């Protein structure tokens, strides 16, 4: 009995020492491999990231990047243009017209200069700035903060067009994207929107309570070879020019080359795809 107890204590003691010592040994022997693996990964990961951040000149992303130039001179000369564009947008996308400011749904809307170009000074601004409203919509940024904020990838960047799209099926209504968007381009459905939709477009769905929505650059119309509804409503006036920012031969590039344009809040680095001629 005594002997057995002695044996048991020996084995137990050895096991405890082995138990304490083993992790240390494993750590020692494994650490060089881990360390080398750890070094290799950031080395590979950092190079493209650094390139993406670029130097002082902004590197534009490759491929089709749909964008828009809004000529506010033409819009201001004929206020009906913008009203028609907003109406076309509402009709195309079954957008509810909710009177309450708190719950209104906006895809394309009007705002005063100081709200649109918050980092431009309105001090001693011209009459055209103080008296007119400006068209605002989702900027379809190249580096969209809303996409980073979305926990379900309900909002995402379409690689082939550069459109910041939404998959309403996936939206859980957390509104992180609304907090992330510096342009206020997103609206939340606080209530069932259907009673507030005046006229239905049978080709497009409505939304439900608890879903965020915004301008989709009329992706469904582009697929059919049509222009976005707002662009079409201004046809002939060139008040809104739509096209591929990366195509040097496109109409939009011709306008951008010729005119001085500004973007909303360019200092934030979101690289908006909507340009304004003021």
């Amino acid at each position: 009995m005594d002997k057995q107890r002695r044996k048991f204590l020996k084995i137990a003691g050895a096991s405890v020492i082995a138990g304490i010592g083993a992790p240390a040994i494993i750590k020692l022997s494994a650490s060089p491999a881990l360390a080398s693996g750890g070094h290799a990964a950031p080395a590979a990961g950092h190079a493209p990231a650094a390139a993406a951040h670029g130097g002082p000149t902004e590197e534009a992303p490759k491929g089709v990047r749909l964008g828009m130039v809004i000529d506010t001179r033409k819009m201001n000369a004929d206020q009906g243009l913008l009203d028609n564009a907003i109406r076309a947008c509402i009709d195309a996308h079954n957008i509810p017209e909710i009177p309450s400011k708190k719950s209104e749904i906006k895809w394309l809307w009007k705002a005063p200069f100081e709200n649109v170009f918050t980092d431009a000074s309105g001090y001693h601004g011209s009459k055209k700035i103080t008296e007119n409203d400006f068209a605002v919509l989702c900027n379809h940024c190249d580096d969209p903060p809303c996409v980073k904020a979305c926990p379900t990838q309900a909002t995402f960047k379409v690689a082939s067009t550069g459109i910041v799209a939404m998959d309403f099926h996936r939206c859980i209504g957390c509104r992180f994207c609304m907090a992330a968007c510096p342009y206020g381009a997103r609206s939340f459905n606080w209530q069932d929107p259907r009673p507030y939709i005046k006229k239905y477009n049978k080709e497009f769905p409505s939304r439900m309570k608890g879903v965020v929505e915004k301008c989709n650059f009329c992706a469904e119309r582009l697929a059919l070879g049509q222009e976005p509804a707002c662009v079409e409503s201004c046809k002939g006036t060139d008040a809104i020019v739509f096209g591929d920012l990366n195509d040097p031969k496109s109409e939009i590039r011709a306008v951008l080359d010729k005119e001085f344009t500004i973007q909303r809040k360019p200092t934030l680095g979101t690289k908006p795809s909507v340009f304004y001629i003021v």
Partner: protein
Amino acid sequence: MYNKGTIIPGLIIFVLFVTFPIWFNGLTTAGDLPKPELPPGGEKQCVASAEYMRANHMQLLNEWRDDVLRDGNREILEIDGKKYPKGLQTACMACHSQKEKFCDSCHTYAAVDPYCWDCHLTPNETASKEATH
């Protein structure tokens, strides 16, 4: 047997109660198979066979949704000369215009409540808003 008078009626009541779903369905119309109404326009052709659609229309709709929204693949399907722009409202409801008589008949029978129509509009619904405006 003791208490014959209560045990036998009790057993009869118990059996009747347990087999309630069987005889209730047999005696009433609750168990009749649903008869979804075919398209009012008389279309006989769909994007896939009736058997496939009956079993897998939900997967097909999910695939279409991902194609159209996420992958930007909005290519219009063409089957036997008829064009189907992928989408519940654009393809399905173009023929099956009576959601209440087609979709609902089976969904009600199977006690499933798909949330498609929380957002998607049925032809009857769109017609209601066009008339009032």
